[in-house]
């Protein structure tokens, strides 16, 4: 796996602060008092079994879901207190890469990337849009797929285009929802390298939701383990798994570590 230069984390500048976060769906309590801080320039992997509320957490950060209790501050704004315009302005600064890539089926790769740009940045010429799209596609190594439809792309390529679509708006924070889910090991490695490259090239702070330990180990500065709606341990990857906690040991043993 390609190693990149060490980047700087500004521990004095939190970009996301979560305190006392609770979220339920009907009778099912998913998040039970989450406290967490993401610092500028940092990559944090959130690990946990399926259904533990990992994706719910980042959906609350970006305002797709409302918390039942607690506060989420992203780039200094309390997300659940923002009106539509303020939330839209905040979302321009946060990139969200979906587990399913969520590419627009009816648009080709170029149109998928140009769409958020055209809708959010006024007075851009066609040439400027084209150049921006080509630049971001080049960064994810898919410039040759510019005229392809999403259905013509492989799973890994779809993930890359999905990440490129978020990068086109130059976000300060990236939220990755299961970036390596459903991919073969080689493609997973490519996506892991891409996440690291994005952090260096675009100076982003990221939360990576995953249950893939290889991904967590190779992308994160810190790892947070989510278990039954709460963070049971937060620290470096090695610190989190240097434990006698049975659940964590089980989780570690079931995964293959590169």
């Amino acid at each position, binding site marked *: 796996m390609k190693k990149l230069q060490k980047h700087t984390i500004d521990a004095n500048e939190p970009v996301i602060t979560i305190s006392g976060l609770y979220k339920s769906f009907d009778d099912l309590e998913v998040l039970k008092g989450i406290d967490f801080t993401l610092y500028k320039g940092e990559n944090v992997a959130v690990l946990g079994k399926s259904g533990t509320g990992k994706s719910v957490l980042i959906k609350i950060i970006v305002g797709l879901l409302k918390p039942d209790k607690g506060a989420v501050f992203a780039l200094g704004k309390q997300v659940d207190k923002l009106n539509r315009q303020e939330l839209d302005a905040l979302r321009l600064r946060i990139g969200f890469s979906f587990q399913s890539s969520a590419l627009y*089926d009816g648009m080709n790769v170029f149109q998928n990337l140009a769409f958020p740009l055209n809708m*959010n940045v006024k007075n851009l010429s066609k040439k400027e849009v084209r150049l921006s799209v080509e630049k971001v596609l080049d960064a994810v190594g898919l410039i040759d797929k510019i005229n392809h439809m999403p259905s013509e792309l492989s799973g890994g390529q779809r993930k890359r285009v999905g990440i490129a679509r978020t990068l086109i708006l130059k976000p300060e924070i990236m939220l990755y929802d299961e970036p390596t889910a459903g991919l073969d090991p080689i493609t997973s490695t490519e996506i892991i390298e891409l996440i690291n490259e994005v952090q260096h090239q675009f100076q982003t702070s990221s939360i990576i939701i995953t249950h893939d330990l290889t991904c967590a180990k190779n992308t994160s500065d810190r790892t947070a383990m989510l278990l039954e709606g709460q963070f049971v341990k937060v620290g470096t990857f090695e610190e989190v798994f240097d434990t006698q906690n049975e659940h964590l040991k089980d989780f570690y043993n079931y995964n293959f570590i590169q």
Partner: protein
Amino acid sequence: MINFWNRKYIFTKVIDQYFKNVYDAYEFIKLFFKEAFKRPFHFREIINQCYEVGLKSLPLITLTGFIVGIVFTKQSRPSLEAFGAASWLPSLMGIAIIKALGPLVTALICAGKVGSGIGAELGSMRVTEQIDAMEVSSVNPFKFLVVNRIIATTITIPVLVFYCSFVGLYGSYINVHTEDTSSILTFYQNAFSTITFLDIFESVVKSVIYGFTIGIVGCFKGFNATQGTLGVGRAANHAVVLAMFLIFVEEILIVQVFNWIRFY
């Protein structure tokens, strides 16, 4: 005394859900009117949707309208001939097609073709997180996907109704012409001789309401689809069934209202 506030459901789960759906539909319509007059306006997308709804439905509308015109004329002729009133056939067809058959046939065809298409498209966008992706890209998905589609159906279906009526009358003329030779000009003159401005206005009002209904039902069902691919199929199916039901209810109400206007 029953404590309603501590009960899980006010009535039963199904009844509560029914009222919740009605309230959600009301909120959906309210949001449409709020967003429809607010900037930004996506004129290009509205034109795209008009093309999808209108131009792509033309072959089906042409065929259906033409066949309805021929069949209805063929079926009506013996009854009129029995009373020696075969010459009234063009007038009868004019009233029947412009006032009732044209709007109704077009609306039902579009409910099937366009309504299910919108329901399935938005439903699949919902379950594959494409709508969420739009939302997190700071694009208002309601405005872009719902408002533009409803405007497109409300504009395009009245045009299709008039086209269908014209083609239906032409089909009727073909049938009339094969039995007793008459010119197309005379046929159309006779067909429109009993049509008043109020009849045309009634047809316009009907078609605008049908267009709005097809758009709003398709979008509501698709936009709120849940439960994966099963939900997509369900959204498409419900969009057609509910739109058709509402079209018939609206037909009765509009006819009553216009009859009342004519009476006074």
